[in-house]
């Protein structure tokens, strides 16, 4: 089975490729990249004016299955993923039951295979039940398919436990992903602590609640030699800490969400609970620092932290609404509109943060279009104008802060192992 994707601009930062060329896929693998490739008995996909990229990889997604299937299932989440151009997603373990043992890990892997849409790589819990006390069975989970460990949703507050977790994870080649938040400093907070929390009378979470934990994790990574990945980095101070750690050669990586790149705490005015997430939307200074971190490479990956919630659950007082917004289907549009079309960040950097660097951070297969690799390909039109309509989402949930936003840039087709899983 041959598929020729013809005439598009191939951006593959993992191989240093950025040129207009044809991509030949055969039997589900990348066969060749070049000009004037043979088209005999190949299906042709006309891609002039479009961008051909390795399939996007999202390191941070909440799929809610098992346990909260009314918000999202592995199937609906995988469908939302490919609609957003993501061919691989990493599923956080805060399900019900928590993914802290191999049987839940296997369940997730099996369900994903059944859905046959995006690849789903489970992230196992660091501690049992993510309670922060006893270690979870990391080795067993890895055998079952886990690619990293995290207690996401919560930090591991006890530093001794975190130290042990890092040492143990290191032995088994697993990256430790931390949701950095000092629970005492942040207790009761519903948004970023600053001018807007004062204006709106909401309890705020100071940026220091994240930075103290980022600093701690970096130091423990130095002590243990573990690979640490900072989830959804959100403050200027955190970016600076990671920057310095990298300068000193430490194996620390981090990710940023599209919503933290596009929005600030000013968005909370109006009390729309679709602006409530953790970490919260921060100040304009923080946002500028995140964008700088994208530009200078301090931040490795763009990851959505896709967190579906049912409309009923979000339809509460701002104080009581759950944290989290969906993001798989708006990520590309938001990032291109905010960073690329505004002239702040080059297209190749953006693609790199969606492909090669996330793959490297978690040692995942894919993230590039090297000959012989599985043909996970995302084709997008960087100029296509569209308006976000949550009712059109493939995700079961609609909790987005971008409803009604006019965006420029959208996925046109997504291929997993050479098979078209999305065709617009």
């Amino acid at each position, binding site marked *: 089975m041959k598929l020729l994707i013809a005439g598009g601009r191939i951006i593959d930062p993992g191989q240093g490729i950025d040129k207009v060329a044809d991509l030949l896929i055969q039997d589900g693998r990348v066969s060749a990249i070049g000009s004037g490739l043979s088209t005999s008995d190949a299906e042709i996909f006309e891609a002039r004016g479009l961008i051909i990229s390795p399939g996007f990889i999202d390191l941070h997604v909440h799929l809610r299955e098992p346990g909260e299937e009314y918000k999202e299932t592995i199937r609906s989440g995988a469908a939302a993923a490919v609609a957003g151009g993501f061919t691989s997603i990493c599923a956080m373990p805060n399900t019900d039951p928590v993914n802290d043992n191999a049987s839940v890990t296997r369940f997730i892997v099996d369900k994903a295979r059944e859905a046959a849409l995006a690849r789903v790589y489970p992230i196992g819990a660091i501690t049992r039940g993510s309670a922060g006390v006893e270690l979870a069975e990391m080795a067993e989970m890895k055998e079952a398919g886990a690619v990293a460990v995290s207690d996401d949703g919560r930090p591991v507050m006890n530093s001794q436990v975190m130290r042990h977790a890092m040492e143990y994870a290191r032995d088994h080649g697993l990256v430790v992903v931390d949701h950095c938040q000092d629970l005492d400093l942040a207790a009761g907070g519903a948004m970023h602590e600053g001018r807007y*929390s*004062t204006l709106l*009378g*909401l309890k705020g979470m100071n940026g220091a609640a994240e930075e103290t934990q980022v600093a701690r994790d970096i130091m423990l990574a130095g002590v243990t030699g573990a690979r640490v990945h900072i989830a959804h980095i959100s403050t200027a101070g955190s970016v600076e800490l990671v920057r310095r750690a990298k300068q000193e050669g430490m194996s620390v990586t981090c990710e940023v969400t599209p919503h933290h790149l596009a929005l600030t705490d000013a968005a909370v005015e109006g009390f729309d609970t679709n602006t409530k997430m953790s970490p919260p939307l921060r100040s304009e200074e923080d946002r500028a620092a995140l964008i700088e971190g994208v530009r200078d490479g301090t931040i490795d990956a763009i990851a959505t932290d896709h967190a579906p919630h049912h409309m009923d659950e979000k339809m509460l*007082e701002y104080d009581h609404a759950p944290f989290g917004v969906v993001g798989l289907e708006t990520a590309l549009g938001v990032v291109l509109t905010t960073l690329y079309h505004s002239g702040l960040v080059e297209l190749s950097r953006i693609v790199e943060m969606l492909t090669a660097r996330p793959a490297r951070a978690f040692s995942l297969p894919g993230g590039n279009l090297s000959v012989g690799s599985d043909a996970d390909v995302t084709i997008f039109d960087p100029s296509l104008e569209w308006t976000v309509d949550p009712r059109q989402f493939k995700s079961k949930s609609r909790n987005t802060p971008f409803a009604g936003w006019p965006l420029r840039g959208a996925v046109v087709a997504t291929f997993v192992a050479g098979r078209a899983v999305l065709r617009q």
Partner: protein
Amino acid sequence: MKVAFNRKDLLSIRELAAEEILTILDTVESFKQISTRDIKKVPTLRGKTVINLFFEASTRTRTSFEIAAKRMSADSINISASNSSVSKGETLIDTARNLEAMAPDAIVIRHPSAGVPQQLSGMVGASIINAGDGAHEHPTQALLDAYTIRERKGSLDGLQVAIIGDISHSRVARSNTHLLTKLGCHVRIAGPRTLIPPDYEKLAGDSEGSLTVCDHIDDAISGSDVVMMLRIQRERMNEAFFPSIKEYSIQYGLTLKRLALAAPDCIVLHPGPVNRGVEISSEVVDSSRSLILDQVANGVAVRMAILFLLVERNVA
């Protein structure tokens, strides 16, 4: 003569222009007169329904709104959180829809969470009056405070006003800060550092007056024309905001001695209920400088005026 106030809801002082605030204050005058008549009632809102939806216990404010509605001949109904299904986990949309089905003309709402009146206003056709939402705003309180000040001082422009106490948790502080700075007052804030929220001095934005956060309560009180004391809740002591009631009252309480630092005709306000001996001494409460009871009387008139302006707004 046109009226510069034509809104469906009263959600916050922040969104009001100075002209709107002055229009409201000018309207209050006539309503105050009604409470001095033999028959303390006008037929203006006859047949209208006002629901008092209180998710937080408050006899004082609720009674004030109830009397205000009844003096306007409206039907006043009280719903408190324990009587509604909200405590059972009803969503805001269902609360709103259930209320709408009763076809009220106005809903007065007090809630411990900021933003609820605003969230509801988009969902119901009735006029929403914010009677206090978390630490966010308490518009009618600021209006009655301003009216009380203006009644005694003639005009608000250029007055030095001190607001003292737990600013962090105070919707009264925020609403008053917005209103007084919009009308040209020089507002000075003081309290324990732990109870002053970040960037508070930026709250006033570009208004006519000015806003300063003082290091010491005496700096704020010195030369003031109006001193507004905020109530301190004892629970804050248990949350490590300040060490003890005793220390609080010595460091931050208003006594006659401290009041002597203010202007000779300085007046004292307090939103109530008063903690005698804590944030304010009994001597000050009972002195002729204290307009605390005037605030209560004016509260009814202000709320009558608000009900009138919202319910009988120009829908044409």
